[in-house]
C-alpha cells in the first residue's frame, strides 16, 4: 500500500536511507529523532535510554514487525496517515518538527499538521521533544492485533506531591485528525491521586468521528469516552485496568 502510485514516469530516485538522517540523539532532556529512523530503531533506542515510554510503546506496536522496520518517523510525520500510532505520543509530548526546503525552521508539530503551507515544498529532517517523568497510558482501538487504529489515546500525567501537576490528553483519528482534549486536561489539573474521578469525563470532550470499519461515528465516540475514563483511572491510581 505504500507503493501505490504510478512510478513509470519518475526521472530519478534518491535513496533517503543513505542520507545519514537516522538515529536518536540526546542533549540533556531534549531528544532529537532523525527523519529516516525506522519505528523499530526509534523504539529500540528510546527503550535503551528509558526515554519517552509512550512513544516507544506506540512505535513498538504500530502496524507489524516488517513494516515497523521500514516505516520512518519522518515519513509518518510528513504523511500523517489517519491511522498513525506515532502522532498521539509526539503531539502529547509537545514535539517540534525540523524542516528544510521552502520553509527551513523548527515548528511545533501541532502547527505542522494543521498548516498546509508548512508541508508544501518542505522536507522533514527530524523531530524533537523534551522528555519529563510522565506517567504514561496509551490505547489503540483495533479489531485484531495487526490493524490500523480507529483512534489512539495518549495520556501523560506529571505528578507532584501526589497531585496531577500537568495532564496531556491527545486523541488521534477523529474527524479533525487529532484533538488535544484540553477540557480533560483542565478538569484534572491539581487532581489528587487515588481519589474518585469527576463523573462524566468521557462525555466532556468535544470530538467527532467518521464512520470506520471498526464502528459507526456514534460508537467510536462512545467508546473513546469509555477508554478516556479507563485510562485516567489507570493513570491516576484508582487501580483499574487499562
Amino acid at each position, binding site marked *: *500500500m*505504500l*507503493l501505490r502510485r504510478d*512510478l*513509470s514516469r*519518475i526521472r530519478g*530516485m534518491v*535513496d533517503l*536511507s543513505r542520507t545519514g538522517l537516522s538515529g536518536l540523539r540526546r542533549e540533556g532532556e531534549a531528544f532529537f529523532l532523525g527523519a529516516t529512523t525506522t519505528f*523499530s530503531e526509534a523504539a529500540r533506542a528510546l527503550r535503551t535510554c528509558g526515554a519517552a515510554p509512550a512513544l516507544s510503546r506506540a512505535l*513498538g*506496536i504500530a*502496524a*507489524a*514487525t*516488517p*513494516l515497523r*522496520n*521500514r516505516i520512518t518517523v519522518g515519513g509518518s510525520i510528513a504523511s500523517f496517515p489517519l491511522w498513525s500510532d506515532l502522532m498521539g505520543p509526539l503531539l502529547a509530548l509537545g514535539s517540534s518538527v525540523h524542516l528544510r526546503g521552502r520553509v527551513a525552521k523548527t515548528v511545533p508539530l501541532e502547527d505542522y499538521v494543521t498548516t498546509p503551507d508548512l508541508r508544501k515544498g518542505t522536507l522533514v529532517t527530524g523531530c524533537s521533544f523534551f522528555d519529563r517523568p510522565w506517567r504514561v497510558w496509551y490505547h489503540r482501538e483495533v479489531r485484531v*492485533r*495487526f490493524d490500523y487504529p480507529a483512534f489512539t489515546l495518549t495520556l501523560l500525567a506529571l505528578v507532584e506531591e501526589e497531585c496531577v501537576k500537568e495532564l496531556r490528553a491527545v486523541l488521534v483519528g477523529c474527524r479533525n485528525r487529532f484533538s488535544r482534549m484540553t477540557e480533560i486536561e483542565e478538569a484534572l489539573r491539581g487532581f489528587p491521586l487515588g481519589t474518585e474521578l469527576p463523573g462524566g469525563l468521557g462525555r466532556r470532550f468535544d470530538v467527532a468521528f467518521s464512520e470506520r470499519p471498526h464502528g459507526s461515528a456514534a460508537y467510536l465516540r462512545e467508546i473513546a469516552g469509555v477508554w478516556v475514563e479507563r485510562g485516567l483511572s489507570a493513570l491516576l491510581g484508582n487501580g483499574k485496568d487499562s
Partner: protein
Amino acid sequence: MQGRFRVNGKEALWTFEAGATLLDVLRENGVTEVKEGCREGHCGCCAVLLEGVLVDSCQVFAATAMEREITTSRGLGDLRAPSAVQQSFVDAGAVQCGFCTPGMVLATHALLEERPEPTEEEIAAGLDGNLCRCTGYVKIAEAVRLASERRRAGGNCGGGGGCGA
C-alpha cells in the same frame, strides 16, 4: 536500471524497472521461495531479511536493496543442513500448506537473533506481520519455542534427522 544484488551470499547483476519492488525483481530472477500473497505489506509471505532486518519485499523498492545483503529462507539452511528454525517448524508440525512458511521462518530467525529466549508476547510481536490460515498458529508458536531451545542448546542442525533429539 541495472544493479548488483546479493542474495544468500551470492551476487548477481539484474536489470529492472526503476520503480519495481524487490519482490518482483527477486521472483523474476528465480528467487521463488519469496512468495506473493497480497502485495500490500500485510501477509508477510514475501518477507526477506535485508541486512538482517525483516521486511516485506513487496514494500521495498528493489533499488533500495542494491548492494545490501538479502537473506531468504534458503539462505538460512538447505535440505541437507536445515537451520534449527527450519527443522523446528518441521518437527513441531508447524508446516501445512507451507506458503507462509518461508516468511515465518525468517521472522522467527530475526526474532531469535534479537531475543534468544522470547516471551509469549515477544513471539506474538515478532510474528505479528505473518499471516497463516492453515495452522491456527498453535504449532507455529511451538516451533518458535522449540527453535529457541535448540539454538540455545547448541546451534544449527546438521543432517536430515532432527535436532538434538
